[in-house]
């Protein structure tokens, strides 16, 4: 059991925040977890959270990887998703009759665009050594105009049945499609981690790029790769977002999502200056943020002050997870442990001596 706790120690923050939010919500109304069936699909607070957080979850995964490898953040993700989805929409609209194939091809096309945008940021960061935030600033400032041009200076409407079903539910399936897509995406990411050394390489590069290079890992390639993965993430997120909205609004689509994505990475127990990372943490972080947003609404906080509440909450979180506080907590824990040790002194002592004796004999 203690080993298990140690293994998941990085998840303590996101899980405890989530627990806190659940408690608040339960106090507000005991029916928080109630799920009903509406039009053949599950409906309730939890399905709503899962539905609403889809894009954020997907983008947080990409953000975690980029952060881990490049020690910085990509702030252009919302804009990139807007561009990829603009291409998707244009492809679908030019097709006379929209079939599943149209949607799939359109999606794949948008993935290609996502890869290109990722490659653009990735090249700036890995080859030209531009800070990720600065590099992605270019797309961030100019990207929405590009999407606007792709849209033909309008907000095109995506009113076909398949898009509808992707944005809501497929008849006969009780779970909303964006939730399913998110789960599938997470599963694919899990497979990626299972079948490759992505984690080892990214962490190595993020922690010590010099050593990585001397051990045969090309840090540039790995950083570039994380941006490519981010590109795919933006394409998937854009795809879900535009099908949800039913309309491509190049001005507002996923406008401020990079803030929440960075936050999700941080709440997930990840350092924003790279190195070891936890995708699970970031995913929990993303759902936590969604839950936080909805909790503030559930508490009926006035719209004028809702931002302030969120900010205060986040500041508290960040302070709690900051190195200074962590060190302090660790020291406090140490003191507690030594106090406990002094109580059970004799036993502990005997144990450790035998250990040493054994070791010496080897």
């Amino acid at each position, binding site marked *: 059991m203690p080993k298990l706790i*140690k293994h998941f120690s990085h998840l303590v923050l996101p899980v405890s925040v989530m627990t806190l939010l659940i408690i608040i919500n339960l106090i507000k109304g005991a029916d928080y977890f109630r799920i009903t069936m509406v039009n053949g699909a599950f409906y309730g607070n939890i399905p709503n959270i899962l539905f609403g957080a889809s894009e954020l979850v997907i983008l947080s995964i990409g953000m975690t990887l980029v952060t881990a490898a490049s020690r910085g953040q990509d702030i252009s993700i919302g804009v990139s998703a807007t561009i990829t989805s603009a291409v998707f929409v244009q492809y679908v609209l030019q097709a006379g009759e929209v079939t599943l194939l149209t949607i799939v091809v359109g999606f794949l096309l948008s993935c290609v665009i996502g890869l290109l945008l990722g490659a653009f940021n990735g090249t700036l960061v890995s080859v030209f050594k531009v800070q990720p935030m600065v590099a992605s600033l270019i797309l961030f400032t100019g990207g929405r105009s590009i999407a606007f041009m792709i849209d033909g200076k309008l907000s095109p409407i995506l009113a076909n049945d398949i898009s509808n079903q992707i944005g809501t539910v497929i008849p006969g399936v009780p779970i909303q499609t964006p939730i399913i897509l998110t789960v599938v995406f997470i599963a694919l990411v899990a497979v990626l981690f*299972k*079948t*490759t*050394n*992505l984690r*080892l*390489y990214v*962490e*190595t590069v993020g*922690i*010590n790029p*010099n*050593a*990585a*290079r*001397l*051990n*045969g*890992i*090309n840090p540039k390639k790995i950083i570039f790769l994380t941006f490519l993965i981010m590109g795919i993430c933006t394409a998937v997120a854009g795809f879900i977002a535009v099908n949800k909205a039913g309309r491509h609004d190049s001005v507002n689509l996923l406008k401020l999502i990079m803030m929440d994505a960075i936050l999700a990475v941080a709440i997930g127990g990840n350092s924003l200056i790279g*190195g*070891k990372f936890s995708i699970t943490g970031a995913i929990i972080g993303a759902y936590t943020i969604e839950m936080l947003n909805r909790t503030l609404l559930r508490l009926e906080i006035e719209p004028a002050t809702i931002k302030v509440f969120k900010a205060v909450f986040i500041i508290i979180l960040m302070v709690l997870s900051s190195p200074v506080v962590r060190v302090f907590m660790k*020291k406090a824990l*140490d*003191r507690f*442990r*030594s106090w406990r*040790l*002094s109580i059970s002194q004799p036993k502990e*002592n005997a144990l*450790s001596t035998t250990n*040493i004796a054994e*070791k*010496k004999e*080897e």
Partner: protein
Amino acid sequence: MLSETILEMKDISKSFPGVKALDSVDFKLRKGEIHALMGENGAGKSTLIKVITGVYGKDAGLITLQGESIHFKAPEEAQNKGIGTVYQEIMLCPNLTVAENMFIGRSHSLVVNWKQMNEKAAQLLDSLGIPASPVQELTSCSLAVQQMIAIARAVDMDCKILILDEPTSSLDEDEVHKLFKLMRELKARGVGIIFITHFLEQVFEISDRITVLRNGKLVGEYETTSLSQIELISKMLGNVLEDITKIQKHEPIVSDTSIPVFEGIGLSSAAGVRPFNFVIQRGEVNGFAGLLGSGRSESARAIFAADKVTGGEVRMKGKSVKIKTPLHAIKQGIGYLPEDRKGDGIIDDLSVRDNIILTLQVMKGFFKPFSLKQAETFAEEYIKKLNIKTPTPDTPIKSLSGGNQQKVILARWLLTNPEFLILDEPTRGIDVGTKVEIQKLVIKLANNGMSLTFISSEIDEMIRTCSRLIVMKDREIVGELKGTELTETEVMNVIAQGGKNPCLN
């Protein structure tokens, strides 16, 4: 004369998850003494000083500074109380200038007078004979110079205690003497100095007293003059060290027809060594000798393509190959244990296991990860083989003692089973017992057909293991020594004359 105690530690205990690093240790430092702290890798030496300076909190015990009970919460407090410390791992900011590294965070005023600071730095650098300019960026300094700068930073002329944790690990004899001179000066002023090292000669040369730790426990405190080297070693290891002179040197497996394992012609790199030729045979152990900054590490790095390759041709077993990146070199069966453990070696947040399998994993490929079980097996095998002290293979490498970190990096390369392994200062920070083990290992590997290049600041170590020494000076090969020529004096001669035996074929 009764010497006055400045620092006294009683019953100090400190545990980390899985290890009891210090177990009821007593320690006493007197005014104006140089007190050596000795012990194997992982004995708890660094932990003891970190407990003094407040890097770690102690679990139990009492520390008094000049009769006053102290409890520092942060290293800065210790600094302010007159305790200057050089930690084992250099803790400087690579992007700042030399002068900034020496003074920033030390002055109490927020306003920095740059001109004054640079002048003061220049003076201090000069008095310590450190070849660096105050305005130079730290990264552009060699590891040795960086270490000297860290010392300069810690030395405050009116400090009461100076703590030096393996300050000499990457220093040359010359620099060591400069440091010793400084230490003696401080001692004369009544400063108490705690000195940690694995170099026994240095201990006997400079220290007045020795405290020995073993496995986190106090073995005892001794007057240096009352102890012989052998006695000291047996106190540290708990048993008697096998005679190192018994090591049987190994001769390369060569016949007239044999093709060298590695042959480099006109190798050069962006780090600036003169184009040089280098050949090594199967089963040969050779070495680069020379003073610090002579270009021995740079040459090794050029072979491995660790720095940007700017020219040269390489043949592996007679076949012309391209080695432009470390990955090429690794794929050709070349390994390189870097000099700078912290900067180029360890991946500090990753586990011992991941650190061990890293390079083998890279060789195997991005799409072929080892199963956890497999990785675990590899890690455990080498933890045992090299006697690496770690609670579990899952422990982050950064929480290992310096010497044990070094063993992990060595394990990493041994696991890849290279044909040609370059070891740049493999025994840095390694205790006497393990040093012998490593030298024996080198010979054993060569016996099994591996070619090795050995670089060390300790010439005797190289003479013990190498069958051929390539001597360098001013980034150029100035000579080569073999067979009976392999003596310390001969090496020094070649260096002094800049090439008695020029062999720039």
